[in-house]
């Protein structure tokens, strides 16, 4: 019964999204306020209906209603309650429901928070969002209905949730990730609304910016959690695998990062307009492409949902309409928009343009690496896979100029900048960075380890240049108290850049100094790794609620003193016939100790994988810092200021 309520609510939501797609656009076209004003309550109601529908599915999981096929396929009565709830988005249908919940949530938020926008623009934005909504609601209802019943014969128990997904990281990873993906729909709607109206003034960029920042911030956290999850659950000690699904989330992130910077230029200088619009379209298109790649089975990946050509076909058709349509509109409208602002070769505009070029090159690298196997196969050249070194080496080279520019850009003025005044302070900071990098590195054995040196140098450079810039600002504004006058978005930038520095250092240090050993151990054996002694003290049988298996206890010593106790598990999930490795991790800011239990060998002895991973936490902490930067930027007062009555001077020059 409850499931039918959920289904019905979803059907109403589809009808409502149709209204949302048509009325406000019509109102904007005719210049009538009524249909546009109607959009606001419609958007809120859409969200409420979807929330009801989502709650109904949660309820079905909660009470173990195995007459619902989706519940039967993804849950089990033995599953703890918190995993029963996260199983709601554990597979295709439910995750699509989560997707539309977030999409309608963003739509409702736009409807509620955009009072200050001109009515015509509101209508266009909500109309475009309504259109995107229609596509996804139709997809859920026609292609992936989570409420299908199994009657009259229903299973007594469910097939259980994929054990890989039975983890805390998985509880929050997909919601955050989808918030990011779907959030770019708002930036997209702003871009299309602007294309429809032909207006690209500073106000437009200022309105679009916080939404883009919010989406980017969610995506950052989502990707970071995904990486953390893979590290804990896959048992390989890796934090990034260049898996197609990971790549599908990285592409919109890279473009989204470029978009944030490009929007800044459009807001402050009224230029880069066509570029910004293209990036806004691209960010959302890549989110859609990611959904297509993950859900159509075009690429085989560890994460891929069940393959389905009809679903893929639907998504591809949707992609064609949305992306093809918007790019066509872009071609038709954008060439008429010209920027008036002038700038010199050495100016912040050009440096930010450089930021965009490198981010887009990175996107292209990921894109090619992900889709090349598909091209290769479709051209009849055989099945291939792209090795990790491809991504790693190119990203390494891209990071150098990117980080150098990143440290420099905040120092450089808009429009034009003279070289000479910057040489002295920046030279000092550069030397400082060099000293710091070599200093840190000499604490380790080899000051010449290339990658680590590079990473530390770049990280130190970005950090010092960022701090130096704040110091310079303090000097200009009359001492430290003056810093309070700085806009929140400036602090956001500082945090974001520091987060990036931390990420770079973390990656370089982990890549260089991680040590790994696969060992065969008996009870009482010990192994030495990087000064740590791991002693296997006990292995015993496990008895979990929905799994069995083995657990190993290890003691870790350093210089004869006990550091910690580690508990690693290998679980067997009988219902899904899966084996899972639960790694034992002892985390500190400067290093992780990581042990994964492998198979039992004759003896009895066990295969164990032991790692010492320096600075691996910095990768995730850096990402969190970046997201925090986004949050601080969002709090900037100017995004909440009522719009200045549209000044005709900023009208686009059509």
């Amino acid at each position, binding site marked *: 019964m409850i499931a039918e309520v959920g289904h019905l609510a979803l059907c109403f939501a589809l009808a409502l999204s149709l209204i949302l797609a048509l009325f406000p656009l019509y109102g904007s076209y005719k210049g009538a306020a009524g249909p546009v004003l109607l959009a606001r309550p419609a958007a809120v109601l859409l969200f409420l209906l979807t929330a009801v529908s989502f709650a109904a599915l949660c309820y079905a999981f909660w009470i173990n209603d195995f007459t619902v096929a989706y519940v039967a396929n993804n849950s089990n009565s033995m599953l703890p309650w918190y995993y029963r709830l996260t199983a709601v988005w554990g597979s295709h249908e439910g995750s699509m429901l989560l997707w539309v919940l977030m999409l309608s949530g963003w739509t409702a938020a736009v409807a509620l928070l955009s009072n200050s926008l001109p009515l015509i623009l509101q209508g266009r934005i909500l109309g475009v969002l309504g259109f995107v909504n229609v596509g996804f609601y139709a997809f859920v209802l026609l292609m992936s209905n989570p409420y299908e019943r199994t009657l009259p014969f229903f299973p007594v128990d469910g097939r259980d949730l994929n054990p890989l997904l039975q983890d805390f990281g998985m509880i929050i990873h997909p919601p955050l990730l989808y918030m990011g993906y779907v959030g770019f729909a708002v930036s997209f709607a702003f871009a299309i609304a602007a294309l429809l109206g032909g207006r690209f003034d500073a106000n437009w960029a200022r309105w679009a910016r916080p939404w883009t920042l919010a989406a980017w911030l969610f995506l950052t956290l989502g990707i970071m959690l995904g990486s953390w999850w893979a590290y804990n659950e896959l048992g390989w000690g890796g934090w990034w695998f260049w898996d197609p699904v990971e790549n599908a989330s990285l592409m919109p992130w890279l473009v989204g990062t470029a978009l944030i910077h490009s929007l800044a230029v459009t807001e402050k200088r009224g230029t880069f307009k066509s570029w910004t619009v293209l990036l806004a379209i691209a960010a959302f298109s890549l989110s859609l492409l990611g959904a297509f790649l993950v859900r159509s089975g075009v690429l085989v990946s560890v994460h891929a949902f069940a393959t389905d050509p*009809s679903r893929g076909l639907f998504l591809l058709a949707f992609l064609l309409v949305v992306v093809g349509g918007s790019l066509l509109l872009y071609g038709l409208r954008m060439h008429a928009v010209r920027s008036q602002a002038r700038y010199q070769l050495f100016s912040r505009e050009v440096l930010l343009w450089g930021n965009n*070029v490198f981010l887009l090159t990175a996107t292209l690298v990921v894109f090619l690496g992900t889709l090349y196997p598909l091209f290769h196969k479709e051209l009849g050249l*055989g099945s291939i896979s*792209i090795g990790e070194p491809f991504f790693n080496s*190119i990203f390494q080279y891209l990071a150098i100029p990117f980080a150098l520019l990143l440290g420099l850009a905040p120092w450089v003025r808009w429009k034009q900048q003279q070289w000479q005044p910057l040489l002295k302070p920046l030279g000092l900071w550069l030397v400082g960075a060099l000293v710091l990098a070599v200093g840190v590195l000499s604490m380790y054995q080899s000051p010449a380890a290339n990658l680590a040196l590079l990473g530390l140098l770049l990280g130190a450079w970005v950090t010092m240049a960022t701090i130096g810039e704040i110091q310079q600002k303090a000097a200009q504004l009359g001492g430290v108290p003056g810093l309070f006058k700085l806009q929140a978005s400036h602090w956001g930038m500082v945090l974001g850049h520091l987060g990036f520095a931390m990420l770079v250092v973390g990656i370089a240090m982990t890549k260089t100094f991680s040590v790994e050993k696969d060992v065969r151990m008996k009870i009482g054996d010990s192994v030495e790794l990087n000064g740590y002694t791991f002693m296997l003290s006990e292995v015993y049988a496990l008895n979990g609620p929905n799994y069995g298996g083995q657990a190993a206890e290890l003691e870790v010593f350093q210089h004869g003193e006990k550091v910690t106790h580690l508990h690693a598990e290998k679980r067997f999930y009988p219902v899904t016939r*899966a084996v899972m490795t639960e790694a034992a991790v002892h985390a500190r800011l400067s290093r992780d100790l990581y042990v994964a239990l492998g198979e039992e060998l004759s003896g009895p002895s066990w295969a164990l994988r032991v790692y010492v991973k320096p600075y691996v936490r910095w990768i995730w902490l850096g990402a969190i810092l970046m997201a925090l930067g986004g949050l601080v930027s969002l709090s900037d007062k100017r995004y909440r200021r009522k719009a200045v009555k549209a000044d005709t001077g900023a009208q686009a020059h059509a």
Partner: protein
Amino acid sequence: MNPRRKQRLLAVSGILVLLSGGVGAMLYALNENVDLFYTPSQLIDGLGEEKKKPVVGQRLRIGGMVVKGSVRRDEHSLKVSFDLVDTGPIVTVHYDGILPDLFREGQGIVAQGTLLDATNIQATEVLAKHDENYMPPEVAEAVKGIKHVAPKQTYPAGTP
């Protein structure tokens, strides 16, 4: 207008040079990192129309079934070797490390590594293919109405 044009020309040609260089380097790197997929018989007989055989030292991926009884472990380390087969020829994979959770004799696996000689491969990574259960979507849909135990013939919960 003229200096602006000049500046533009400079910028555009700069971009073009960078872009073509970048794309070239990228494609080169891409080709360097392509790992072709072979089955044991393709490894022996060659791949595709031209019967292209891999050369010794080449990085590749190989997928096949682990021959029953062919898994040989070293007594004191994690060194292991096993034979792979698809429909005829047998190749041997050598590996030093922990085999994946779902590695079993008679199961399909994929190994990534380099070719030692005509029939031997040193693997750097061994992956188990975990679904031997093709589930085309139409079927997954159809299954929803079928694959259920009628209430009378149930097993107690938790029975493996």
